[in-house]
């Protein structure tokens, strides 16, 4: 019952409606270029919101979170090419394998605190990339390529793109809802307690190893699912694009930009970051130093607005908190 009551938050539904409206915009205008732009934003929303469940709620910094995106993508594409699976069960299998990896890893590395955990996640991502580079069933360094005819089952490539876009929009909305449900549950309160003081949380009865592991598993599942979706759309997967550490850090930047630990933060952070990146890439002045501008922006946020955009708004205008979940 309490969960249903929790769902009566006007801010949550307002923002879900806004995301839905933005997501439907390219469908109404039927513009493929807008669709591709928003697809990238929605992908970022899913990755950043998922990371936020671990980073924002428990305070554990996963620097190698992209490992779940890459592994999911690999498992999905492998099942599609080697066993002729359809996309839907493959997406589920990708998500489950990532969640399972998180479950195994969680038992081990979540014992590490602070920076040691962050380093271990980098190590795991690099080990996974190097391993898959040598793993013949997944194609080694050349990876896995889809045959173009695979899109025929989905009404041809052009239709498939629209369909994949729709699925991505649904997943992004699902992820926002999931973030909210987790945060407002008793489990979520336990996670927030871990973030503030893990030892105190343990004393107060939070079974911290279990709570942390489940947060890790939850934050790994959807990246695995969208990994399959993304690489299915892409048509092929190779180790360097699947386990790109840089992308992992971009996820962190989005969460920090928007405000970690909030529902809305990663969403606005993802949209803002991708929009800014697009602007910089198309500007003659900044095209070449796009990375530098992003770095300066990140530094300014870390130094002066550590709570991020949404966190800052919440602190500045406490009355608006209901509308800034």
């Amino acid at each position, binding site marked *: 019952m309490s969960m249903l009551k929790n769902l009566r938050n006007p801010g949550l539904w307002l923002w879900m409606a806004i995301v839905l409206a933005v997501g439907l915009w390219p469908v109404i205008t039927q513009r493929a270029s807008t669709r591709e732009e928003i697809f990238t934003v929605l992908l970022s929303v899913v990755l950043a919101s998922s990371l936020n469940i671990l980073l924002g709620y428990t305070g554990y910094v996963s620097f190698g979170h992209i490992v779940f995106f890459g592994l999911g993508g690999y498992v999905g594409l492998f099942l599609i090419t080697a066993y002729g699976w359809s996309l839907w069960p493959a997406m589920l299998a990708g998500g489950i394998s990532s969640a399972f990896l998180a479950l195994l890893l969680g038992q081990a590395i979540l014992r590490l605190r602070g920076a040691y955990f962050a380093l271990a996640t980098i190590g795991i991502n690099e080990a996974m990339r190097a391993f898959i580079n040598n793993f013949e069933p997944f194609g080694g360094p050349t990876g896995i390529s889809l045959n173009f005819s695979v899109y025929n089952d989905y009404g041809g490539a052009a239709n498939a793109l629209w369909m994949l876009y729709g699925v991505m929009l649904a997943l992004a909305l699902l992820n926002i809802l999931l973030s909210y449900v987790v945060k407002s549950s008793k489990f979520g309160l336990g996670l927030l307690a871990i973030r503030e003081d893990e030892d105190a949380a343990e004393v107060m009865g939070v079974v911290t190893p279990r709570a942390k592991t489940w947060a890790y598993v939850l934050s790994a599942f959807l990246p695995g699912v969208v990994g399959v979706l993304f690489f299915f759309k892409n048509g092929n997967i190779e180790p360097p694009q699947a386990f790109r550490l840089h992308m992992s850090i971009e996820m*962190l930047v989005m969460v920090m930009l928007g405000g970690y630990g909030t529902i809305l933060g990663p969403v606005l952070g993802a949209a803002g970051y991708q929009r800014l990146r697009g602007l910089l890439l198309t500007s003659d002045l900044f095209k070449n130093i796009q990375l*530098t501008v992003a770095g300066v922006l990140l530094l300014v946020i870390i130094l002066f607005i550590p709570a991020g955009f949404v966190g800052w708004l919440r602190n500045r205008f406490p009355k608006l908190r209901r509308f800034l979940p």
Partner: protein
Amino acid sequence: MDILAFLVDGLLIGFVYGIAAMGLTLIWGVMNVINLSHGAIIALGMFGIYLLFSLFGVNPYIGVVLVALAGLITGMLIYAIAIHRVIDAPHLSTLLATFAVNMIIIGLGTSAFSTSPRNVDVALGSIEMGPVAFPATRAVAAVASVLVTGALYYFLYRTTLGKYIRAVTDNRAAAELMGIPSARILALSFGLGTMLAAIAGGLIATFFPFTILSGATYELKSFVICVLGGVGNPVGALVGGLILGSLEGVIPAFMPTSWVPVLEFILFVVILLVRPTGLLGRKK
């Protein structure tokens, strides 16, 4: 016979890895900051040597000294601008602040130098010792690394400033109460850490080709070595570097080279789990 040659080769490179890791471990040990701009500084060290050599004809080994000085100053500036404000904030802040510095440097570097490979041609021939022959540049780099380690050790354990650094490492609050200007000592330590990174980059540039992005590889290796040798332990970093270097030398004799990083990172994670204070680190 072959394996001996591989081993010597790996060990010589290991000395330089050790210097790179020493920079990382010093900063980590003194102020509990993991410097994610480490790789970018290594790359700057490489390009420093390259530019001095190709534009002004400066001998690469004199270049290393100049680059070291520049590294010291750059590091102190980075500390003042990017780190000092968040030094007491949670880990995420310092990790991301140093990563932001990394993005700034790599962004500027990429637009200035593109990502095409460069190399500094140092022709010193090769040295033959009994059955093994190796390039003299690597031997010089190894000797330089030992000298740098010795100098750092002397500085930390035999000078007043070094004593201050060790005091701040042990207990910053107490050190401040004793009148040690901790902010300046932290800036100096960060500068020393980046100086070591720049030296390592410069030395690596004398025997391997490089791009502006090459630093990332050595940064990852430095993490592995830090964890091997124990955080905050300069001699441990050197020993860790030798272990990693010899592993890199010997493993390819038994399996394809592409397996080396797999083993390295598995070793890294396992040591983090089993003994996070490092193989040679003191117990907490």
